[in-house]
């Protein structure tokens, strides 16, 4: 374990704070999370965005009523086609760095349900469409167009469904609901993006079982083709196989376990993960742990614990502690605490602001101020 002191950058007050706290970092984070959890329960909806069911646009047509509901999309009559999406504009002001404003994602979603047992889904994401910083540099140097998802589901029964195409990798919880309007914070935990590919091309078998008082879902998948990815830096695994098992209890808590084996250059890497989610009134507690064991310097592991508290119908607080160990001499472990708040000016839009404290400088977890505005449409 590398000493955080050896990585200190002189004049960085936050790191000085961390150094002073030393081994108490974890205790501080847990205390902050416990404060959120201990706050009395109020009956407020628990979601960054809050959406209604009533359409704001409705027009009769030859193919049925065409309706639009914010956050539920445009329903094209009785065709079974629904079109929607989300967008996110983010500002990052890392410590000692210039600020940067970025239109970081614009996604279109399309769902088509021609038959009760057949479901098509498509997500097209335009990433990093535009950015500007405090030096006046503006442009689209890193923009890319990516097919995040493109699949067909065939439901044989509740217990047996088959998905074919490009789908999100079912490891943990964050990756499969990664849309910014659905997340409490602007920044993503390192453990939810580093150890595995966000999406896969292949086939997945999944289903549900219904024990008394709960729900068990499973998925088993095989990746045998490359995703349609516009980012030239993205290098998908040559071959992946994986599985996930999740139990959701009617009392409001859920636990999951994930496994993924991925081959790159004839080197198989194995990832195991555990995750939990607990809802109690206005409090949500979420955590994920993942460890990837491979050859050479491929091993890495991380864990985060996050708590969100819905203060009112329009505002929430969020706190998160994360530890990530890259198992790399050039990239030692990092501990971060994120404290933030969110405000919903209108139901389908959320404004987020947070400060990320890190015990060392890391490209993967940039200490400093982060904010965003996200909408689901």
């Amino acid at each position: 374990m590398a000493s955080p002191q050896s990585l200190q950058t002189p004049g960085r007050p936050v790191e000085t704070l961390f150094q002073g706290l030393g081994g108490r970092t974890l205790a501080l984070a847990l205390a902050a999370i416990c404060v959120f959890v201990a706050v009395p329960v109020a009956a407020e909806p628990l979601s960054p965005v809050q959406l209604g069911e009533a359409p704001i646009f409705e027009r009769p047509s030859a193919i049925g009523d065409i309706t639009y509901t914010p956050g539920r999309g445009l329903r094209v009559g009785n065709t079974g086609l629904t079109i929607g999406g989300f967008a996110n504009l983010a500002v990052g002001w890392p410590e000692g760095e210039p600020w940067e404003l970025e239109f970081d994602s614009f996604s279109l979603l399309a769902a088509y349900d021609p038959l009760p047992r057949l479901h098509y889904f498509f997500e097209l994401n335009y990433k990093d469409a535009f950015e500007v910083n405090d030096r006046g540099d503006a442009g689209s140097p890193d923009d890319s167009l990516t097919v995040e998802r493109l699949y067909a589901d065939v439901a044989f029964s509740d217990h047996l469904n088959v998905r074919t195409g490009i789908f999100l990798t079912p490891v943990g919880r964050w990756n499969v609901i990664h849309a910014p309007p659905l997340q409490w914070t602007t920044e993503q935990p390192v453990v939810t993006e580093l150890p595995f590919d966000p999406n896969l091309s292949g086939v997945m078998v999944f289903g549900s079982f219904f024990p008394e008082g709960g729900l068990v879902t499973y998925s088993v998948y095989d990746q045998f083709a490359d995703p349609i990815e516009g980012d030239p830096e993205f290098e998908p695994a040559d071959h992946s196989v994986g599985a996930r098992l999740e139990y959701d209890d009617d009392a409001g808590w859920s636990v999951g376990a994930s496994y993924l084996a991925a081959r790159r250059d004839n080197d198989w890497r194995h990832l195991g993960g555990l995750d939990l989610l607990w809802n109690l009134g206005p409090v949500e507690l979420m955590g994920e742990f993942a460890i990837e064991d491979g050859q050479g310097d491929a091993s890495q592991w991380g864990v985060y614990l996050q708590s969100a508290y819905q203060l009112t119908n329009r505002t929430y607080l969020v706190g998160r502690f994360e530890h990530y160990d890259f198992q790399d001499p050039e990239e030692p472990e990092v501990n971060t605490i994120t404290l933030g708040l969110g405000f919903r000016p209108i139901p389908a839009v959320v404004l987020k602001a947070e400060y990320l404290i890190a015990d060392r400088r890391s490209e993967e977890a940039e200490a400093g101020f982060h904010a965003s505005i996200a909408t689901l449409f």
Partner: protein
Amino acid sequence: MVQSIRSRASLAALAVMLAWATPTSAEDHGLVVITHPSRATSLSAGDLRRFFMKQRRFWSDGSPVIAVNQTAATPVRTAFERLVFGHDAASLPAYWNQRYFEGLFPPITLDSDEAVLRYVATKANAIGYIDTRSVDGSVHVALRLGAPEIAGP
């Protein structure tokens, strides 16, 4: 004088008790979960939870389930969510936001007991809920919710 005051106090207390005991909402009377007469089955609250969250999408014979909600924030809908989902009712918006991200949508909604009754009476795979006072012989009552004296399959 004192006796008169006591009598008035007793009458007032009785009035309050009667007002408290008088059913004023759907939950006071209870709800009935209804299906088409051809689907004469009994259900549990857990089954309802799965149907209305679209986690369970098929009847035991393999037919697709059509769950029918009532309009949001109406007394019947509020009572149904409280009785079936309890504290979890607060997390339903987040649940459906996440399902929307997968292209899955909440159950269809109808705006009255009468509309739900008519719909379920004519759709073999539909399931809905209405105030107990609105039910008639055109549907099968699969479960009673709410009022203790009539609860149970």
